[in-house]
């Protein structure tokens, strides 16, 4: 049993991603969508803490949202993988529940 968490807010503006990371369990996945994709960027003030959590949970960003904001996969933290909407659907079905961190 595992959870897909979705985070749609920038981690530089709200606490949503940090709160999500604090409650996710090993084996869970976190998908960053919309303004949440900024959480996947490397070289930021938050990269270290996010990468640390990434050892226990799988981290994803929605690639179309990343591209909209002017970044490509090369800017992501190594622990973070890009998926498209099909991948989003797969993540929803693979995990037992979806929890949104609004």
């Amino acid at each position, binding site marked *: 049993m595992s959870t897909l968490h*979705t985070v*749609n807010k920038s981690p530089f503006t709200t606490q949503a991603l940090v709160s999500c990371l604090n409650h996710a369990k090993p084996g869970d996945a976190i998908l960053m*969508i*919309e*303004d949440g994709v900024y959480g996947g960027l490397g070289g930021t003030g938050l990269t270290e803490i996010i990468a640390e959590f990434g050892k226990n949970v799988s981290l994803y960003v*929605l690639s*179309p*949202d990343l591209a909209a904001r002017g970044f490509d996969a090369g800017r992501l933290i190594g622990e973070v993988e890009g998926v*498209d*909407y*099909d991948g*989003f*659907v*797969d993540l*929803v*079905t693979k995990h037992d*529940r*979806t929890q*949104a961190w*609004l």
Partner: protein
Amino acid sequence: MKIGVLVSEGPYTHQAADTAYKFVTAALAAGHEVPRVFFYHDGVNVATRLSVPPQDERHIQQNWTALAKEHGIDLVVCIAAAQRRGMLDENEANRQGKDASNIAEGFRISGLGQLIEMGIQTDRLVTFGD
């Protein structure tokens, strides 16, 4: 798999209704069922048929109406949230003594029980909000 979807924010202001639309399209293409999309909070504003976006922008309401028609999706607008925000169908307008309605084809107004029912009857519930 049966996937239920909750949209909690209004059109254009937040990306929620756009992301939900893309997600539902992908889920249907992958062979999943999306029996119902429930619109709550400012999400009820997605259902207005009076929206006139600029020519070079997507028409969020019309996109949902078309997708629902093609795939038989039940688009439900929460009645309590809709009343506060001035979203009425013709029946509601008559009942409330209002001189106009604004709900688009393909959306129906109903109660929050439809959200709970969706949670019970689907395998997954995915929320798009602010």
